[in-house]
């Protein structure tokens, strides 16, 4: 492939990269346009992000400009790179750590009050490396935000409950959502701040802490109450949004808890197993001898989950679920038998006439970590096993393109589900 070098040294004007919108929420689409190229010239569009952890992430696509010297990422096809075909958002979802990076990285924003900065640039020719060595022909900087203007961020520290509450702008009160993350622990705010940007008061909860003083279940029950009782939250409209271990807890509480009665739930990559025992230690009682290793020595925990799941006494009685539940799972989930679990849940709920409460979204070639759209896909990442403190590389599964499609599709459907149950079902209290 001949690549014509475009000169910027001769004083001629460079091409122009424009991205609209230049400041957007992370789930909003962008249009990347390059103009003023020579007609029919091969160029590479490149995206670069310097993460909070100081790693570099990039994506790139190979394009050919039209007779006017224009490349439109939304309309043209990429012929190679980290994505191919017509992919308006390919420069974001196909990002991966640059060559030479540490292994097993995962990209997650910790500070949601500042945007994620991504540099979009255009390079001469179809190249696959050396982006940092040669200056681009032109570039534009974009901001990707996890928080809309006007969203309030409130730290919560009450009797064992540690989390962050995000309140949408406006008079309120708003429907509420308890946001339960997975077994990796920590306080991850980005999904909550994004959900709040869509009109739901969302509480991101840190429920796996080293503080043994408060049993896990009391923490979650207390958090749910804090949300319900908050003056900016509509107490009859509080739901739960779980991921992985958070989903397991969601299903358990929804079925079994006398205190927690969510109006509806979203469970991503979970299952209906009983977190045995009423303590943190009980949650993490996993049959680790069932862990398999793949050809790269990455941990596959699917069978661990299966072993638990296939023991009837470990199963939550989902016949007791009384609210609408949206299950989102990936068919290539290597971490947990989420799809098998969903099938069993559907069977059990149908048997007691509650099948109408359950909606199942299952995506092919999609892994365990189904996150907000346009975030990069991680097939395997570093993980610290809570019980043993062992550092492993966990295989989550999924192939990048189908997994990214699943993230985009499921997010839209999750928002529609929440909107329908938590907003539309409210009777308007306005006088006509």
């Amino acid at each position, binding site marked *: 492939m001949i690549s014509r070098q475009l000169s910027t040294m001769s004083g001629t004007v460079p091409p122009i990269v424009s991205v609209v919108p230049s400041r957007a929420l992370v789930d909003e689409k962008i249009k990347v346009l390059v103009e003023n190229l020579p007609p029919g010239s091969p160029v590479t569009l490149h995206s670069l992000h310097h993460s909070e952890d100081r790693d570099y992430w990039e994506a790139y696509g190979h394009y050919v400009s039209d007779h006017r010297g224009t490349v439109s990422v939304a309309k043209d096809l990429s012929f190679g790179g980290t994505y191919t075909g017509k992919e308006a958002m390919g420069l974001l979802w196909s990002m991966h750590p640059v060559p030479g990076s540490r292994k097993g990285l995962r990209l997650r924003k910790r500070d949601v009050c500042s945007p994620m900065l991504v540099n979009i640039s255009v390079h001469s020719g179809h190249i696959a490396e050396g982006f940092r060595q040669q200056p681009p022909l032109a570039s534009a900087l974009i901001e990707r935000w996890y928080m809309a203007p*006007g969203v309030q961020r409130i730290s919560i520290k009450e009797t064992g409950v540690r989390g962050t509450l995000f309140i949408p702008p406006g008079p309120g009160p708003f429907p509420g959502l308890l946001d339960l993350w997975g077994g990796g622990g920590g306080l991850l705010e980005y999904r909550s701040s994004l959900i709040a940007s869509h009109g739901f008061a969302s509480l991101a909860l840190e429920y796996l802490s080293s503080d043994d003083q408060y049993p896990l279940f009391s923490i979650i029950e207390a958090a749910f109450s804090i949300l319900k009782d908050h003056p900016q939250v509509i107490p009859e409209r509080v739901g739960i949004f779980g991921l992985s271990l958070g989903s397991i807890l969601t299903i358990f509480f929804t079925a079994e808890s006398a205190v927690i009665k969510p109006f509806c739930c979203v469970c991503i990559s979970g299952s209906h197993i009983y977190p045995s025992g009423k303590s943190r230690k009980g949650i993490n009682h996993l049959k680790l001898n069932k862990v398999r290793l793949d050809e790269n020595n990455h941990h596959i925990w699917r069978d661990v989950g299966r072993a638990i799941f296939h023991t009837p006494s470990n199963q939550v009685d989902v016949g007791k679920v009384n609210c609408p539940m949206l299950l989102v799972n990936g068919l290539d989930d290597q971490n947990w038998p989420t799809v098998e679990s969903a099938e069993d849940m559907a069977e059990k709920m149908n048997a007691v006439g509650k099948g109408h409460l359950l909606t199942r979204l299952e995506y092919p070639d999609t892994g365990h970590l189904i996150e907000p759209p346009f975030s990069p896909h991680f097939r395997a990442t570093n993980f610290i096993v809570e019980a043993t403190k062992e550092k492993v590389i966990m295989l989550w599964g999924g192939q990048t393109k189908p997994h990214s499609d699943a993230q985009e599709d499921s997010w839209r459907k999750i928002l529609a589900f929440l909107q329908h149950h938590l907003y539309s079902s409210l009777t308007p209290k306005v006088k006509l």
Partner: protein
Amino acid sequence: MDRTQSCVKLSVKPSRGLMDEKFVVLVQNVPPGFQLTIHALHKCEEGHSWEAFAHYTANTTGTVNVSEDPSLGGTYSGVEQMGLLWSLRPVPGSKPGLRMRKVDIQTPMEVTISVYQGHQTEGFMDQVQLAGAVVERWYMAPGVRRVPITEGGLTATLFLPSGPGPFPGLLDLWGGEGKLVESRAALLASHGFASLALDYLTPKITIETGKIVDNSYFETAYRVLEQHPKVVGSRIAMMGLSLGTSMTLKMAVYSQVMKLRCAVCISGTHVQPIDGSLEEMLNFCRENAGKIRVNENQTIFRDLLLPIPTDPALKVDVGRLQCPLLLVVGDDDENWPAQESAVDMKDMMEQAGNSHLLTVLLYPKAGHLIEPPYSPHARASTFVPANSHQELVALWGGETVAHSRAQEDAWRKTLVFLREHLYGCTMTVEH
């Protein structure tokens, strides 16, 4: 206690945009046929509150889309996607003669958009909204760099677009109030032009020495741009508003140093003594001050420069212009005789044979202050001419709806003009 619950959803997209970008305001989840008011509130840097509002009736799906549905009344009517911004006006009880301007252009303008029940016209602050959202309006795109310039005795700010460059350059001049106005240069840089906002009436050097700058000051500014490593020296344009136009035309035609690629003159005139520089122009205005009229406490300056002289020593010989010129003119300009000047300039250029360089955009019922779009229109406002300290109320002219349309159209056409002459390519009407 029975709390009112609102299921009304309000969204403004994009919630963070540039000042010249459009947004879509959408209200959902109200009963079909529901009457509501959408309200915009902004507290400016000087602490004044500005508001706009419009009355809508929801359709059968319980939705109001401001970009598609007509306003039935308020500070604007009809289908006006951006009406909530350009129809902003000081809240009742405000000081008269206000004009909205942002000095710190590195932070966004914040506007609170709210939905109220019914068709309201006042007392918004005493009512509970049904829903609210906050919108940020930015002057600077991400990655645009702001560089204060003091070399060569200049008082200026350079805005560089994001990216390696180099970029075409632009010299940006404002009008008779002086000070360093950065808003337009910041926006232009967000569109790919390395723009230098220049204070030529109240620069440090004039404040300290009392001396008015002359042509060499402008030529220095041009040189600073030309020699900047991030600027393509052979592609520099000049843009002026009002008095800024006078200097732009003078330099475009007579300067041996400045080789402008193109020029944009907004609400300006070519009438000035061709000898000398800024000081001569200011003296000329002072000599004709008797022609200034005051009507109902509003000062009308336009007669100052009328009638358009026939004496060639008193108007820039635009027949000698060698670069494309875009004139933006409002036919209700009460401050300067921009329309009469445009007609005369066209005549001169037709006679000289260079009228193919001229494009005149004449906007009906637009006033003097034709600025980047969606900023509120002020038909008159308090004005302190530079170096004068005498506050008066200047009549700018223009009727709000027409003026706002003119701003939107002129800005788009200005960007197309600059893109074509400075980048050498036509703009894709993509976004």
